[in-house]
Structure formats: structure tokens, C-alpha cells
């Protein structure tokens, strides 16, 4: 995959991640307040947005839960690292399942009441899954683009 496409993907992921924290950005870009409700509803289609699960800082809240925030932040971090990796080679599809395991375990354990919801655990397990998931997406796109180029 060319560096140009990687930069485009990186920017798109950055915009998506920045959108999660739009409440934190509005004080600096007032015009965004017009779009706030629309942006909020956009993220509502991909997350339950339960208030007690949102990341809170300085009175502002993220637009998605800690787990989703973690997934997107993980994806963003990996997409930055992937800018410096010319070609990917993944031979096993199980890594993503392994990366999802802590997240799924956390969902099950707190859902069945073994412990109460922890934003930090949700965030960390989300980051792990997101950072691995994006590698598979990049690899898939790499194969797709190589085939189209032939």
C-alpha cells in the first residue's frame, strides 16, 4: 500500500477519533456546536452511549463509551505505526480473535456481575483489540489494492 493511501487512512481515522472528543474541541472551534447534535447522533449509531460508561474529563464527555473509544484510539495508534511499515504479512487469522478475548471476557464478566464496569479495563481491552484489528484491515486493503493494480 502506498504511503499516500496510508496517510489518507491515517487522517480519516484521526478525524473519526477527534469526533469522539468533539465536546473537548468545541471551546476552541465554536462553529462545531452547530454540528454537535448531528455528530452525537452519528456516534449513537455505533455505540449505546450509556452516560456512566463515557470518558469524562473536565466536565466534558466522549461521544462513545470507554470500550469503543479504546478500539478507535488503538486503531489510530496502530495506523500511525503502520505509516512506517512498508508491507504487511499476516499468516494467521487467530491473532485478532486472541486480541478480542480480553475484551469479550470483560464484557461477559461485568455483564454477569462478577465485577462492576471499569472504564479503565474497557479502555485498555478496547485499545488492544483496535490496535490489532486495524492491522488486519490494512492487510486486507493491501491485498485488494495489489489485485486491482495488476
Amino acid at each position, binding site marked *: 500500500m502506498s504511503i499516500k493511501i496510508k496517510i489518507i487512512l491515517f487522517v480519516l481515522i484521526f478525524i473519526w477519533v477527534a469526533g469522539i472528543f468533539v465536546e473537548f474541541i468545541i471551546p476552541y472551534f465554536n462553529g462545531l*456546536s452547530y454540528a454537535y447534535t448531528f455528530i452525537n447522533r*452519528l456516534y449513537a449509531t455505533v455505540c*449505546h452511549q450509556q*452516560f456512566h460508561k463515557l470518558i469524562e474529563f473536565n466536565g466534558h464527555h466522549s461521544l462513545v463509551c470507554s470500550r469503543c473509544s479504546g478500539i478507535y484510539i488503538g486503531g489510530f495508534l496502530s495506523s500511525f505505526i503502520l505509516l512506517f511499515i512498508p508491507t504487511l504479512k499476516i499468516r494467521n487469522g487467530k491473532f485478532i480473535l486472541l486480541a478480542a478475548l480480553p475484551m469479550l471476557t470483560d464484557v461477559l464478566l461485568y455483564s454477569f456481575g462478577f465485577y462492576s464496569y471499569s472504564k479503565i479495563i474497557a479502555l485498555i481491552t478496547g485499545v488492544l483489540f483496535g490496535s490489532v484489528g486495524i492491522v488486519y484491515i490494512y*492487510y486486507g486493503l493491501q491485498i485488494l489494492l495489489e489485485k486491482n493494480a495488476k
Partner: protein
Amino acid sequence: MQNKKFISPLVVGFAAGILSIVPVIKSLGCCLLIPVAAFLSLMLDQKANKNFSKLEIKKGVIFGLVTGLTAAFFGTFFDFLITLITQTNDLVYAFPQLLETINQFPVDEATKQEVLALLGGVIEDIKTNGFSLLYTLSLLANNLFSNSVFGILGGIIGVQILNSRNQQK
């Protein structure tokens, strides 16, 4: 045979569309509901055709897109229907919180009032008629965008998981 090509993404997309408005499922599935649906549509297609040969990423993209679009249409339709009947929805429930958040924005009063008037109009329409054109159109646009993207991503990852699994068999 050609007509049956997209049966699995259509069926799974329909199911995902319904599940996306069921509160508990929505909470558990969160942003993974549509990607998982795209993966399931690929898996069902393989099982239905008993063809476990290597899948192409292109197929994952197409199946993911069809799953996402189907889920978006049905999700929006059922949301519209439930809103029409009950004259309430997630936006109405979230309104007090949105109001509080918007009031906390450090922006000028005129901007705040414009935003609140726009949002208040939508809420009023839903409460009195069970329908708001602006809400329905924005929901459809949001669902089409996010479900398509997440469906495609799920399809791309799904192909790799299935290929890896089938290779080992």
C-alpha cells in the same frame, strides 16, 4: 442462482438492523454488531454453498457493504416505526443530557439558542406527531454511512479469519 448470491448478507443485515434497536443487544453489541454481522454473512454463505475455498477480500467488501446497507435500511425503518407508535425514542430520552451539555458550551448565547431551537423543534415534532423529517433523514444518513463503513471493515477482517480457519482444516 445469481439471485441467491446475496441472500446471506441480506438475511444477516435484516437481523442486525432489528438487533441494532433492541436496547440490551445494542448495549452489548455496541460498535461490533455490524462487523460481526458482516463476518456471519460470509460464514453463512460458505456453509450454505458448502464452498470453503479461499475467499477474496473483494467478496468481504461487497458482503460487508450489503450487510451494512441492509442493516441501515431496516434499522432506520424499525426505529421510524417504533418512534411513530410510541412518540418517543433515544433522542427524546437523551434530550435533557444534550440540553445540559449544549448549555455548558463556552459559546455565545445566540449560537446556543439557534442550536437549542433546532433540536427543540425535532423533539417537539417527535413528541406530538411521532415523526420528524430532519431526525429520520439524519438517522438514515448516519446509519447508511456508519453501517456501510463498519460492514466493509467487518467483511475485510472476516475474510482473513475464515481463510485462516479453512486453511487449517
